[in-house]
């Protein structure tokens, strides 16, 4: 339901506009810097004492050219994408049914279970990564796609389940009982009623999970660091090790952000508010 805002005086309006401009500045300024650096020529960065210009002296796409001609870059993009999508699929396949059960049924020991789920994330990644790696190595999971996908799933699962529980709980119970009386099985209810109605929540989960895996560094570094598989974040790290040209790093960063933005935009149309409106009353 949309409500019209009460009319504002011009003073109020000015204060609001200043506030919005301020927020926008803090969001956009780093993005601007990122893009600017990625198209800068080296003279615009190493200015020899002169202030760094707001716009490069000679905007250039040379860094993009460098990246896009580097076969290594395509490889890491592909593996990052594969790992991220794999993480989305696996963690949702495991997490959504779990969230459904935890959100709709009385489960004995529910609290302990939820605490157990989130326990991995109660510690900083950097301290949980050592035992996890140790454990994964025993199963020969280092330097494998399934290993890193499972590791990222481990990180994403608590969030998938917690957000999932929230979105399943928000669906009126009457709908489920109505379907039951009409003869629907539990699976049919899940498939035809609960799943379609929880789409906005699930999309949010998918975006979050994708992002989490896409820009994850610590676990990727420990599990893949020495092997053949590399991700974008590891690639960035690798480039930083050699005397890092800032403009190249900025370019990689732009390439790291773009798919995330694209993915979120694609998914956004499913995030409609008020999907259960009109069901009850």
């Amino acid at each position, binding site marked *: 339901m949309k409500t019209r805002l009460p009319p504002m005086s011009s003073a109020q309006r000015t204060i609001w506009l200043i506030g919005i401009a301020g927020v926008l500045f803090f969001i956009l300024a780093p993005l601007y810097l990122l893009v600017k650096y990625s198209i800068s020529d080296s003279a615009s960065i190493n200015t020899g004492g002169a202030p760094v210009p707001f716009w490069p002296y000679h905007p250039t796409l040379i860094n993009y050219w460098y990246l896009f001609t580097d076969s290594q870059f395509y490889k890491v993009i592909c593996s990052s994408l594969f790992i991220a999508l794999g993480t989305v699929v696996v963690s949702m396949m495991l997490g959504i049914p779990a969230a459904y059960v935890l959100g709709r049924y009385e489960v004995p020991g529910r609290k302990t279970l939820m605490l157990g789920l989130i326990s991995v994330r109660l510690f900083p990644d950097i301290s949980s990564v050592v035992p996890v790696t140790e454990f994964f190595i025993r199963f020969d999971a280092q330097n494998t796609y399934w290993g890193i996908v499972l590791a990222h799933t481990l990180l994403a699962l608590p969030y998938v389940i917690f957000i999932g529980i929230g979105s399943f709980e928000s669906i009126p119970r*009457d709908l489920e009982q109505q379907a*039951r*009386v*009409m*003869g629907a099985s539990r699976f049919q209810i899940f498939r035809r009623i609960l799943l379609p*109605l929880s789409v906005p929540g699930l999309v949010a989960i998918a975006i979050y999970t994708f992002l989490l895996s896409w820009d994850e560094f610590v676990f990727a570094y420990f599990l893949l660091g020495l092997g053949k598989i590399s991700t974008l974040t590891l690639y960035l790290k690798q480039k930083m090790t050699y005397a890092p040209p800032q403009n190249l790093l900025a370019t990689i960063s732009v390439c790291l952000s773009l798919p995330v933005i694209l993915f979120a935009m694609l998914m956004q149309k499913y995030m409609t508010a008020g999907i259960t*409106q*009109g069901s*009850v009353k």
Partner: protein
Amino acid sequence: MADVALSHIYKSYDGNPVIADLSLTVKSGEFVTLLGPSGCGKSTMLRMIAGLESIDKGDLYIAGRRYNDIPAQKRRLAMVFQSYALFPHMSVRENILFGLKINKVAPALMEEKFTWAIALFGLTGLERRLPKEISGGQRQRVALARALVLDPDVLLLDEPLSNLDAALRESAMEELKRVHRSVGKTIIYVTHNQVEAMSMSGRIAVLAGGNLEQFAAPQAVYDDPQTLFTAGFIGSPPMNFLTGLLQTRGTETGIATEVGFIILDKERQVRCVASLGKKVIVGIRPQNISYTDHFSARRVSDTSITLKAELFETLGDRNLVVARGAGDTVLRFLMKQDDDILPDRQVGVFIDGRKIHVFDPDTRKSIFK
């Protein structure tokens, strides 16, 4: 079509009994209302019949078969929830067809039923709308259509009209009656609204605190309430209650109360002989106390008393008078619109001895045999 028999049903939540030893039989094709205040167990009863609640003790039979352990999705019943529970992501058409699809009905038959249902409920033209795009009254009709296309043995309705405004409710009641007459389904209807119960049902089961107070036709529940609860719950404005002693004075039997000796008609006198000499509670409906002017003729069974009129409430066609009798007893009665009583005046009224209800204060049941 099927009859529904509940036998010695018992249900408790966390050790608190909500339904205690309740037995009730709904005949095939009958329209029965479970009527009672909130928390009386009526919705729980309905949900037990639907299979959404388990039955702690007792048996549920539908068409002669024990149903206790049959899961909800196999019961072949239909239910309309108070909230209507329309599936918000499905159009009117998809909502109505949902149950048929689930039950794998042949497409041709499905189409036939759909056409029948939207015609019956006047939903033509709304087939593609989503629930949020139609009005409350239309949602209620979609919910009913969705239940009826399944051709259920029993139709369960849980306060389906409580979300409608007064005018819509009136027409929805007529529609429900019409539908019941045309499809002849067994209907079990739950409500706390006595107007709905009185105007639609074949029989009313009055429930209070998980007990069945009375199970009879609407007129019988009104004319002959079997318990104090039923007497107070049914009828508007509510019944007047006085305490008194049941005794015989001369040739008449009646109740000695603070406002006077209220006589019973001959038929009632015979029915209460067993309780003579006992303390009783007398119930008199405001409709059965009439204002008398000089021209009114007193029937033999009428009791004539004098009250002091205190307050007036306009009900539109009539006025409700709140009056005080001897011993500060408050009595409410109805008068015609054109009767003219001033506040604080002494008024004479007749109490109709043919319509008096007498209850035992201990058992809270009617003493009439």
